[in-house]
């Protein structure tokens, strides 16, 4: 069996190793042929056995959208809920059931538009949820309207003359609300995707993973430069904690003193100034600057990997501890005593 995850300490362990096949359901998968969701599903099904926990102690909660069909295809407990509300529902489950490993599967519209409020509050509280945000920069299920991550000027059915909205960068949003684990990965990079899932699963508290995902029907090629083996290395900054942030053949990330980050050619003079990635620093502002490096349209300088991974008390655990603490102090609740907590009188 693989390593045991500290974040799953309260979740019952599987007695024998599970296989990817055991996480497949008998339901026919109904995404469009070529959808990036297939790759993510396969990666997740292959990864879940690594958690080393019982299948019945995993729950996947989703909202509405193409990605939210995900729970139907994974043979664990699961709920396909309503648009945007998965983080709230998952919070209710996670805070009452420390023996469950709770995952949220959502999309850019579900998480960042209709469900934006629940997403930011789950991250602020640091609920023990693993949130997989499939970002394809489009509304797929409603057949192609721009989403809150679409680039400005997007031509869609609802914006025939171009969208006016300035997009969210999901990683910047998560860092802005001090989410304790923030990462980005790509649907088609199975190895990187699996590594990122592993890091997220190991994290205690909220982990959000933005998965850049392709909708081949309504927004094909949205992430093309990042996925094309010929050119992706010129676009991607692969983040590794403790390692210099390099890009392409001879470029790297630098930082103005206390100022923004930028990408430049490496020279003998500046080589020593290449920024070393530190995912564990408490202050989210460095990671935030890193998240601002990429260009939302041409996608140059796009970091992938773990931006931030820090420790902060986990909401679920604090809630349980507070109950224990009050119970120790007051003694277990006695109903009759509760009724008599105000002045009483006897009628004979």
């Amino acid at each position: 069996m693989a390593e045991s995850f500290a974040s799953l300490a309260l979740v019952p362990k599987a007695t024998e190793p599970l296989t990817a096949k055991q996480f497949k359901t008998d339901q026919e998968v109904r995404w469009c042929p070529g959808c990036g969701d297939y790759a993510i599903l396969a990666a997740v099904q292959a990864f879940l056995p690594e958690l080393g926990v019982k299948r019945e102690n995993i729950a996947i909660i989703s909202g509405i959208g193409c990605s939210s069909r995900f729970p139907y295809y994974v043979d664990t407990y699961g709920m396909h809920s309503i648009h945007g509300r998965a983080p709230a529902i998952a919070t209710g489950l996670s805070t009452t059931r420390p023996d469950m490993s709770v995952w949220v599967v959502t999309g850019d519209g579900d998480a960042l538009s209709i469900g934006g409020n629940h997403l930011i509050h789950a991250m602020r509280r640091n609920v023990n949820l693993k949130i997989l945000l499939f970002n394809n920069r489009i509304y797929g299920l409603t057949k192609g309207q721009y989403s809150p991550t679409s680039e400005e000027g997007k031509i869609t059915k609802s914006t025939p003359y171009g969208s006016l909205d300035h997009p969210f960068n999901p990683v910047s949003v998560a860092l802005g609300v001090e989410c304790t684990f923030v990462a980005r990965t790509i649907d088609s990079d199975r190895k990187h995707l699996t590594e990122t899932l592993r890091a997220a699963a190991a994290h205690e508290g909220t982990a959000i993973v933005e998965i850049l995902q392709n909708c081949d029907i309504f927004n094909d090629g949205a992430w093309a430069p990042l996925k094309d083996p010929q050119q992706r290395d010129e676009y991607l900054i692969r983040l590794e904690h403790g390692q210099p942030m390099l890009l392409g053949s001879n470029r790297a990330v630098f930082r103005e003193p206390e100022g923004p980050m930028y990408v430049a050619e490496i020279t003998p003079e500046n080589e020593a100034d290449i920024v070393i990635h530190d995912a564990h620093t408490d202050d989210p502002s460095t990671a935030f600057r890193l998240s601002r490096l990429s260009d939302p349209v041409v996608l140059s300088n796009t970091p992938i990997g773990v931006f931030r991974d820090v420790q902060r008390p986990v909401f679920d655990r604090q809630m349980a501890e507070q109950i224990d603490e009050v119970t120790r102090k007051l003694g277990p609740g006695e109903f009759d005593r509760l009724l008599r907590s105000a002045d009483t009188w006897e009628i004979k």
Partner: protein
Amino acid sequence: MSKQVVTLDQVIIRFAGDSGDGMQLTGDQFTAETAAYGNDLSTMPDYPAEIRAPQGTLHGVSSFQLHFADHEVLTPGDSPNVLVAMNPAALKANIGLMAPGALLILNSDEFTKRNLEKVGYWANPLEDGSLSKFDVHAIALTSQTVDALKEFELTRKEAERSKNMYALGLLSWLYSRPTDSARQFLQKKFAKKPEVLAANLAALEAGWSFGETTEIFSVHYEIKPSSPKPGTYRYITGNIATAYGLIAASVKSGLPLFLGSYPITPATDILHELAKHKNFGVRTFQAEDEIAGIGSAIGAAYGGMLAVTTTSGPGIALKSEAIGLAVALELPVIIIDVQRGGPSTGLPTKTEQADLLQVMFGRNGESPVPIVAAQSPADCFNAAVEAARIAVKYRTPVFLLTDGALANGAEPWLLPKLEELPGIDPDFLLEPNHEIDGVQVLWPFKRDPETLARPWIRPGTPGLEHRIGGIEKADGTGNISYEANNHDLMVRLRAAKVAGIAREVPNMFIDDPTGDAELLVLGWGSTYGPIGAACEVLRKEGVKVAQGHLRLLNPFPADTEQVLKRYKQVLIPEMNLGQLSLLIRGKYLVDAMSLTKVAGQPFKSTEIIDAIKGVISNG
């Protein structure tokens, strides 16, 4: 020489003052004394929506009404017999409620030109004869309090603060109330401030002595204890009773309680109360919004908790889509709507019953949800237990309707015994429940043949992994199904499940002592008290009238139609524009008449009496 004692059968007192005058506290303490004395009683606070309204203004007036008697009390009372007004604003705001001949105790210190003009009194009502039909006692409550506290080292302002205790002392004397409970309360409250404690006790004492010695009052009164059922009693508000009912249901079912809630008047006190009782394993989650309140409750219900969300009308509107999800998932969730005046923000601190149709129909699609309505403050306890019982047994969201008047109103409560409450059995499914070709499988939507409830399956149960969702499910397997006939079947099954609850709930409450009344006055929720009081008065006058009351509004009790058709006429008083009436007329083709009121205040029994007399005289 002690003064003459006059015995009364009932009194209605209204304490009124500026928000900062401590009138709610005075009322509470007078109530505690009265409860301890053994009178039956009912109370109603009436306070402004503003937290600190400008001093001395009409919208800063905070009032507290108490009705107590030597017999059963059903309402906080129509027209008070006594008004204690701490300033001109309190007089002006309440004088319209007072019966002719009522006793007015007015704090003359505050009737200054400036204070009078602030509320539009251009002449002093103490002098201009405008109060001539009342028994007016202008007493310098503030300065007499300050005089009484001369020996204490207090500033004038500090001493003035005790004027509410002076007033309490005076009223306690006037109505022969023991002051022990007030003393105990003060000792507890000011245990760490001995000087303030001594001053307040002295003010209480001085108020009492003033009554005894002054020539203003030639008599004082006594109201004999009523003779309720033997047992141990306490005084309780509707919101606290609701919170206790939820805890009782948690204890009875063995299910830990989870409350997902967003603060909203007048429901927030339920959250406050439950948050205190974590030692019962209660989890309270103050959500980011109303939707997350129910969302988290649905998640907790899925996880096998006794899940609750509390709110008022605007919050129900926000939760509607999620309530529909709970209907589709068939999970037990208790949704509490403490109704207030609407629409929109409406009247947050005033009462209304205008959410009945919202909770009945306010969702997309055919989305039946059982509705339980509490009928008095203490009854909120039983109603909460019943809502939980139905939710768990039928795997369904259930509405519990209370309202602002019940939530903040209070009455004596005979303490219940846990063992006498109905059992609540979660009955989680632990193994596959269906067989296909000799193989045991799970069918998450296979129904109990009697109740039509589906199994409740706790995540973590091995071998029962399954997925549920808001998309229509195939009967039995629960798999996604867009098949037309299956949808038709599922819609009818969910409706039949809720309708079937009628089989096992008590018949409609009917009070028809002679059994031959021709008029049925039918109520629901908090109109129980005023309708009952009205019927009582009329019966004493020889009028034959029956009272009917609906505690379950969806489904209606099984005998509803039969009862309605027994009476020649049906009158339905409601604090809305006729919502129950619409349902009754629509469902039973009964030509029910409507008596409606949406004035932010409960019905007065006189309003109902007048309506009944009108109906009877028109035959």
